[in-house]
């Protein structure tokens, strides 16, 4: 009986929306924008991926086709890697455009990734892009508001609310029906974007996408939009008029989706300031100066190392060592400088993560931030994906440089070192680079705050509706009695 009443009210709500030409027009608009966004994003992602793959192949070929070379020359020749976007970047590009896309790997130093898309575009990019994720997280909530702000209040204004109550529907059933009806309309609006996304992800055109990630995205946006449906019906049930419910809901949308992200970011920046690049480079230089200088033969660290090698091989001078001393110095120098730079880099990333955590706390206020955070995590386009690329590229760099140093130590004689060459066959034996995206489980586990924020976003309005249930009849009577 209870369910039947709720379903009846839901059908009534859907019918009311269908009769409203304005809402139907908006529904068409939202769906059209969503589909355009999906197709546009797919096209963009595919052409970027194609280019990246082409140039990565070219760089790899250039590496293998190097002539006979001294390994230290190869260390300076270096290697170029490109950040691969996650397959789901077409749905939610995350921070992709704002981070570097290519990274030059060479000996002695850690470079930073360059050629971020945003630096080559215009300031217009600051307004954001119409991505499928933006359609779902920014525009759809507004549509939900427009479709549902009058759900309860219009019944009250027309006096039909009292009629419904008189016919035996309980306030809880009415509210549940209104939620279901508005939810059905919201689902209808979100469905085309969702289906198009699933179709593209399933076709494999953007790379392999695990079903788990797609299901995760569906769950996140379903929860996020469900929260908006609940809040909309709640506002409609406790505001005196449809007009004031609409004003309130739009104010809430502006506060949560437009103002809160920037406020959050500015608070994060103020609480955990990051150094400028100049300061950061300076810190790295200072840290490097504190330890050995491999180019200075009088440096105490390298003198001790030399004595240790001489003692180990029981010889009197580095010329008599069975290994190439120049290569050993190069290897140890690389180990030290890499460690220091990695430490500094970790500090920096830690600072960035502290900022991101502040933003996660802001997610408790703004579900938009929480949903965006989770959406980036599941799509594999969040800040940790950029950091994973950096860390993996650095590990790859260190591996290649030390392999080259080992070749220097074992294959090149100390005497007349610089004049010798290593056969080009060696170059093909080096591993190639591929980005391994961070596992989705780990990125989600680090986002418990956003997960709970999204849960609260559903629970709090539910609680509100529970409380409004008691007032519903009273407000209705007061209104009609006045």
């Amino acid at each position, binding site marked *: 009986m209870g369910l039947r009443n709720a379903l009846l009210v839901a059908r009534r709500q859907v019918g009311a929306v269908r009769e409203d030409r304005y809402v139907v027009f908006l529904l068409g608009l939202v769906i059209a924008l969503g589909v355009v966004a999906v197709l546009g994003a797919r096209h963009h992602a595919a052409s970027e991926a194609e280019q990246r793959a082409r140039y990565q192949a070219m760089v790899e070929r250039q590496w293998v086709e190097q002539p006979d070379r001294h390994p230290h020359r190869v260390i300076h020749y270096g290697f170029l890697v490109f950040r691969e976007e996650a397959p789901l970047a077409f749905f939610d590009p995350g921070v992709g455009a704002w981070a570097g896309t290519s990274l030059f790997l060479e000996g002695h130093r850690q470079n930073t990734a360059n050629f971020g898309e945003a630096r080559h575009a215009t300031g217009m990019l600051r307004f954001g892009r119409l991505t499928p994720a933006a359609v779902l997280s920014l525009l759809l909530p507004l549509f939900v508001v427009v479709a549902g702000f009058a759900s309860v209040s219009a019944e009250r204004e027309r006096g039909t609310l009292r009629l419904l109550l008189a016919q035996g529907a309980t306030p809880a059933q009415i509210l549940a029906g209104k939620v279901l009806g508005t939810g059905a309309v919201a689902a209808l609006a979100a469905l085309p974007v969702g289906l198009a996304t699933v179709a593209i992800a399933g076709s494999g055109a953007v790379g392999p996408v695990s079903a788990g990630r797609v299901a995760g995205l569906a769950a996140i946006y379903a929860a996020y939009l469900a929260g908006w449906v609940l809040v909309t019906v709640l506002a409609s049930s406790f505001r005196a008029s449809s*007009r004031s419910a*609409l004003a309130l809901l739009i104010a809430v949308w502006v506060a949560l989706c437009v103002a809160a992200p920037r406020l959050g970011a500015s608070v994060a920046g103020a609480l955990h300031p990051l150094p400028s690049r100049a300061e950061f480079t300076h810190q790295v230089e200072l840290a490097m100066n504190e330890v050995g200088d491999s180019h200075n033969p009088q440096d105490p660290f390298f003198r001790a190392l030399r004595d240790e090698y001489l003692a180990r091989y029981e010889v009197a001078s580095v010329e008599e060592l069975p290994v190439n001393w120049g290569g050993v110095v190069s290897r140890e120098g690389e180990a030290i400088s890499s460690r220091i730079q990695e430490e500094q880099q970790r500090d920096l990333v830690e600072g960035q993560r502290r900022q991101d955590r502040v933003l996660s706390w802001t997610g408790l206020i703004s579900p938009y931030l929480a949903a965006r955070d989770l959406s980036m995590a599941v799509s594999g386009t969040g800040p940790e994906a950029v950091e994973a690329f950096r860390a993996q590229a650095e590990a790859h760099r260190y591996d290649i440089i030390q392999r080259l140093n080992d070749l220097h130590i074992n294959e090149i004689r100390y005497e007349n070192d610089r004049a010798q060459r290593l056969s080009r066959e060696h170059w093909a034996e080096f591993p190639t680079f591929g980005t391994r995206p961070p596992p989705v489980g780990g990125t989600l586990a680090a986002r418990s705050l956003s997960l709970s924020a999204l849960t609260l976003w559903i629970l709090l309005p539910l609680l509100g509706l529970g409380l409004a249930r008691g007032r519903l009849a009273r407000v209705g009577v007061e209104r009609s009695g006045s």
Partner: protein
Amino acid sequence: MTARTVIRNEWRLLMADRPLRIALGLFALLLVYALANGVVWTRFQERTVEVAQIGNVERAQALVRELADIENGAEPASRFSDPRLPNVLGGARGRHTAVLTPGPLTALAVGQSDLLPYYYDVNIYTNESSFHQNGEVESPLNLMVGRFDLAFVVVYLLPLLVLALSFNVLSEEREQGTLALTLSQPVSARGIVAAKLAFRALLVVGMVLTVSLAGILVAGDLGDPGRVLLWCAAVVAYALFWFVLAAWVNSLRRSSAWNATVLVGAWLVLVVVLPAAINIAAGLLHPLPSRVQMVTAQREASNEAVNQRSELLARYLEDHPEMAEGVVADEPGLGALAWAATDAVNRRLEEVTAEHDARRAEQIALVRRYRFLSPALLAQEVLIDAAGTGDARFAAFQSQVRVFAERWREFFVPAILASEQMNAGVLSDVPRFRLADEASADVVRRAGVPLAVLIGLLGLVGAGAGVGLGRVRGAD
């Protein structure tokens, strides 16, 4: 009705409306917070610039001391960093940091200044690829979100306040039944709406301009009246655009609720949807030339160059006879050979970059046409250009650094080619970067176009409102 009566009545009415009172107070708070945020950012940039300039002085002083010690018989620490070598003195050790001081009104609009580099280390090895290697270490998430500055409050939030204040400016009179009464007096609907909106506009624009001027006094430069006027003009034109849009919608004689829905829809389309749609459409219709192509071209060039150094040197000396003085062509030093290879890579890079930049400029010009579709995009452009944080100022800085790097090379390269050593005496003649900042007349000329279009839009909507209000009768 005198203007004073209207204003007094309107003030009483506004203050009687509690939500509006809250909205106005909140807006004032947000303005002040946004300004504080911008001031903090300006201070950060000023400090960074100052540290860079101190670094320039300190590096030079350290080199002078070291050169003096060597002259007095001390050994250089290592033969790789001997400051007498021109490729060391003009290289990383003796580098000069060229800085762009924060735009005069950065505190009001952070604009592109958190994304584009405002300082470059220049040495003899500076080339086109150096311009891509100065990414700030800012968190990409914060870059994506953007700053909470006055420009943001003006472009995004001010329209909403304007609409909240004026969506029912006429419809309410009708709904309360007072319109017929008012119009029976010797006043027109046009006059009433104009007076009411003028009062509200004074209030809102007054708040924004007061905070802006306070910001300019605290952290900016009042000595640049062109920029300040441009800023104020953009704020006024943009705010008035939304006021006259509200007046126009009111003149259509629909209900207050209808007005509110349509106006919020207009805000959503013009401020949120259209810019986002333009960004995605621009990417599809005018894709930017590939950035990775540039990187790979650079590597190819350096590959080729290293293998044919002596050939390159001969060609270089032919092309630059002014640099050749003192070079022994038969037996060039290692430095000269290395320089020839470096130079060949630079030339190749310049070719690739010039091609890339030309295509990019073309595409950006195409994309920028679309900004005429949205007053928000126009206002944003004028505001950040006035602040000195727009794309153009950074591009100008970069091309000045390019010229400076050329001067730097001209100073050191002849000595490299001749395998000469340098001494402390030359340090006072080493080129120093002097920023030739854009004149405010240039800024006004450049930002004049979008501002004129914005004012044109304002005029168009204003005319529509005027005509529509002329038709309003008390009997409606």
